[in-house]
């Protein structure tokens, strides 16, 4: 019987095999791949001015398991159109033949974009691809793929940890919050620009660094439209200035939702210094006053 020895070796190997947190894929190295472009500092740079539409980056063909929980994909793109031209880029997240998300970026001025998307596994060959649709120069940074099982460092529920921090609405279910026309604090026409949720404004045990706050919301109407629905803000309380300071912002539009009445994960990146950590505040504020919003948990993922 050799259970002891193999068990010990197995335990060591298991420890060694623990995946590092916050997988960061260097944009210039495998498993990231390219049809065009070259390394430029820490970025991948591609210039396309003809009618071709190559993938400037793709990969990393990541396999994930259902037990990894929610996944967040994150990268940054900078578009620099040729003079007098409109430049466009397609960014997508896919697994085999399944496209989870596709976003078309189009601009005629130099513009940075923070691209992120959340999904659940399992995946067998997860790819994050950028297709250059010509007329300019594109820079892309490293690709991050965060896994809830490894990288989630805090969770706040609007009807639990934030139960006292709402401008309008009421609790629903174990931890969600809901508000819309006719809700508490709203009129029959809607909720104006009220704050659906804010807080918790207390220490979450985080250390200084880069994070993504993964908000979860659903709307009863407006999915697919180009209209702004609500703002997601990450803030902290600046005691010296006696005001909240926003350190992450996403104005969510109808196009960020695939359907009405479907809970959707919306990531917002932020960087927190030690001075911010004890008063972090995750706010959802109405922009479209007449929609009904249901909010579920906000999960905080650490990026490194």
């Amino acid at each position: 019987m050799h259970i002891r020895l193999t068990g010990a070796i197995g335990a060591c190997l298991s420890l060694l095999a623990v995946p590092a947190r916050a997988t960061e894929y260097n944009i210039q190295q495998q498993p990231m791949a390219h049809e065009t472009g070259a390394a430029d500092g820490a970025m991948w740079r591609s210039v396309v001015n003809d009618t071709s539409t190559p993938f400037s980056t793709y990969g990393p063909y990541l396999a994930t398991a259902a037990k990894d929980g929610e996944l967040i994909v994150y990268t940054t793109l900078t578009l620099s159109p040729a003079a007098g031209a409109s430049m466009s880029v397609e960014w997508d997240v896919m697994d085999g033949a399944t496209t989870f998300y596709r976003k078309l970026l189009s601009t005629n001025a130099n513009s940075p974009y923070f691209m992120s998307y959340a999904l659940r596994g399992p995946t067998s060959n997860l790819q994050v691809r950028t297709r250059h649709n010509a007329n300019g120069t594109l820079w892309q940074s490293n690709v991050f793929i965060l896994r809830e099982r490894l990288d989630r460092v805090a969770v706040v529920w609007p009807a639990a940890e934030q139960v006292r921090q709402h401008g309008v609405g009421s609790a629903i279910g174990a931890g969600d919050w809901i508000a819309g026309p006719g809700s508490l604090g709203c009129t029959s026409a809607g909720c104006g620009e009220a704050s659906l949720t804010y807080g918790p404004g207390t220490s979450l045990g985080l250390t200084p660094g880069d994070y993504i706050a993964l908000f979860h919301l659903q709307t009863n109407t407006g999915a697919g439209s180009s209209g702004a629905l609500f703002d997601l803000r990450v803030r902290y309380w600046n005691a010296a200035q006696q005001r909240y300071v926003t350190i992450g912002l996403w104005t969510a539009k109808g196009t960020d939702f695939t359907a009405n009445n479907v809970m959707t994960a919306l990531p917002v990146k932020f960087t927190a210094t030690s001075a911010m950590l004890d008063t972090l505040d995750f706010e959802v504020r109405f922009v479209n006053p007449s929609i009904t919003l249901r909010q579920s948990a906000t999960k905080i993922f650490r990026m490194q």
Partner: protein
Amino acid sequence: MDPRRHPRTLAGALALSLVATAAPALADQNFYINAAPMAHERGAPAGPFWWAYFASSGSTGFFSTYGPYLRLGPYEGEIVALSYLELQPDYHTTLAADWDVYDGAQQIFKQRYSSYDVNQTFWPAAAFRTQPKDIQVRTRHLSGGNISQGDVRLLWESVDKVAQFWPAVEQLEMHDLGQPIGAGDWVSGPNLPGCGSSCPTNNYISYGPHSLPMLVDGSYVALFHVETNSGSGSSAHLFTLQVEVWDLAEGVYRMLASWPVLGSDLRGNNVSNALPLRFTVPRGMDTWFNFRLVRQHPTITIRQSGTKVFKVH
């Protein structure tokens, strides 16, 4: 000046003391059934219980106990009301009682208890949220014998919650059936993972989280949150809620509490039901806990949300 922040003056110091004294002590949530603010239309104290007898029938009865008119609001989160009833029917008679939670305008929760001929004990429990209201927990004696009632307890989330876990977060790897939905919920039903056109019964929709929470010996309420797409109001056995603890000495899980949930226990289809299950952790068994949702009905779709654990102090 807020004296709580500036206790340097005598007035400030006094105010600070008063604030400290006025902080709601946990014992304030236990309302002695024989003393105000609990009140009574009939009956008398009998040891630690309130004893009310009513032999005749045909009336709407009377409130053997009501109160405590405790002001609670949404800021407290979810609230759990608990009590103890013993029904002692007259010979060959049915004794019934309605136990409810009332906010002065509406009945938030009502459960009817009855027994024919034999003494029965019940541990009524209700979970609810409320806008700022004076909450009462009432027992209406509907005749047919004697009711003995123990103290009324009110637990609230902001004070008494000692743990919480969500099936698609802390219990993510602990399911036989179903898949995650939303930020933290889990759903099981026909044509979802583990099921065909119908689902196997006695399988676990959720179990665990084993290492969480760490509970010391004492009494608790596990507040499960479950919704179904059908079956509400029926007499069908839909699912079972269970709490187990790992017995280190014997190397097995020990069942601490089990509730076979019927359709009549739910307040509607497609609405979240907060289902409180009491359990007591024996001394020396504060180890690993298993909170299970066990499917009993093959075709309903069951969605589970967070489970919160309240300490009964």
